């Protein structure tokens, strides 16, 4: 199987801004009961959403609201109980489409492979010549500042660097849509801010669409062009907040007076839902 890979600098390709990259229509996810006699769990929806090509989109919501379920539905790792999800106009039905790169919350580095071998994993079926594969790996190592650690094993790296390896393994495939599920959840606040800057830099460099799941309102407010706020379970979209940040931005946006207003607005939307979710637990 040959994966369709855009040319280097793929992010700079012209895009049809009018057509959404991902569309969700009346999507629900209901989990069947775990034990006999139990009740099904309505985790998500009904939910409608469009992701625009090239945007940075974040989703925030209270714990257990179905953020990760939404993530896995778009990634093709789960199937919707009802409704349709399409990527580039093609329905996603329980398989991960070509062109989607996924970075998980948990450390998914393969500890028996070096950094280089971890990154090369995704290129097995690319159909690219060895020289081109090597060139891509070098580019991504360089982009993620991992060149000098190419021969290291994940155990020799910090948590932040391991997550960079996971992002590099996704980027080497040159995906049009990058899905990030709380990728910095295990990192300290300073490292999170710096990693956020790196993700913004990569987003600009690749031009890919980024879909970020996070529970950190400040992270969403700093990184995203648009932020969807989800309700408590069953998770529905309460509002989509436009940040209107310039494309060239980094963590210094925290100093912008509008940053506080965006964060406060998100919290205002979320406060009641978070209390509802806490009561439900």
């Amino acid at each position: 199987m040959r994966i369709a890979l855009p040319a280097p600098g793929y992010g700079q390709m012209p895009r049809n801004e009018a057509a959404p990259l991902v569309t969700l229509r009346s999507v629900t996810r209901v989990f069947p009961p775990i034990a006999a006699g139990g009740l099904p769990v309505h985790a998500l929806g009904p939910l409608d959403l469009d992701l625009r090509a090239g945007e940075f989109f974040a989703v925030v919501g209270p714990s257990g609201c179905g953020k990760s379920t939404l993530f896995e539905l778009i990634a093709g790792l789960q199937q919707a109980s009802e409704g349709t999800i399409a990527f580039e106009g093609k329905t996603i039905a329980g398989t991960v489409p070509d062109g989607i790169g996924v970075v998980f919350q948990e450390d998914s580095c393969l500890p028996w492979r070096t950094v280089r071998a971890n990154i090369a994993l995704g290129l097995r079926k690319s159909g690219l010549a060895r020289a081109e594969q090597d060139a891509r790996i070098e580019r991504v190592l360089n982009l993620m500042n991992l060149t000098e650690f190419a021969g290291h094993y994940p155990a020799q790296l910090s948590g932040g660097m391991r997550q960079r390896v996971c992002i590099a393994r996704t980027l080497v495939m040159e995906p049009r849509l990058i899905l990030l599920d709380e990728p910095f959840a295990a990192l300290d606040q300073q490292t999170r801010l710096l990693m956020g800057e790196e993700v913004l830099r990569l987003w600009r460099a690749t031009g890919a669409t980024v879909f970020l799941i996070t529970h950190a309102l400040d992270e969403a407010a700093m990184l995203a062009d648009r932020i969807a706020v989800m309700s408590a379970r069953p998770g529905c979209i309460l509002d989509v907040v436009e940040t209107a940040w310039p494309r060239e931005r980094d963590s210094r946006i925290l100093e912008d007076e509008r940053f506080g207003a965006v964060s406060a607005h998100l919290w205002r939307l979320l406060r009641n839902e978070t209390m509802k979710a806490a009561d439900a637990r």
Partner: protein
Amino acid sequence: MRASWLTLIRGLILLGFIGLLEVLCAYGVIDTLTMQPPHRIVTDLVRLLASGAFNRAIVRTLSNAMIATAMAIIVGVTAATLIHRVRGLREALDLLFSTWYAVPILAFYPLLIVIFGLTSLPSIMIGFMQGFVAVIVTTLDGLDRVPRVLRKLARTQHMTALETAWLITLPAAAPWLLSGVKLAIAFSIIGVVASEFLMAREGMGFEISYAYNNFDNARMYPLIVLVIVFSVSVNAVLLRWEARLARRRGLKP
């Protein structure tokens, strides 16, 4: 405690035990008909190996043990990978696996001789039967511990079931799988030597049994020591490899 100290203590305990045997033999507490002193066993072993008289028996036993081990590993890992995918099958077989070692497998040896004749095959089968369940159980244990995120990763990388097993789940389960391999080697050697001891035309077990029946301690003890040295050496090499893998994965300092 530092590794060098541990090695020293281990060596001293072993040397102390050998020294004690040497003293007990020298003072006649253990008579020479029961056991030769350790230094005689070593010189006899060197003499036997130099003479080449047992080369054929050694090659036969070790090659049979290696074939039995390889079969146990290949069948064990393949079976475990398949069983792990079918929950009902796993539940049905769990009890069988946990009671397997209560079965006196060596008792099947006469039956295997009837089926396969007095060839190497019955010994190999006994070695295999001793080892393969240990490989299945440890591999299943390892597969249970593969983080779910790695299985999701395999799906995002469009891997087939075979690729997922080869590239993700089996390497992730390797530390547990290696424990199974160590057990398979030990059990296979025990199975092969013990079956040769019972009934065979050649092999180290046969030679040990022959020497035992003829009160030939000058042959019996060196051959026993040779089996022990081989088994322990292979396990020691695997332990070093296991430690290296564990360090690489950050599981050991």
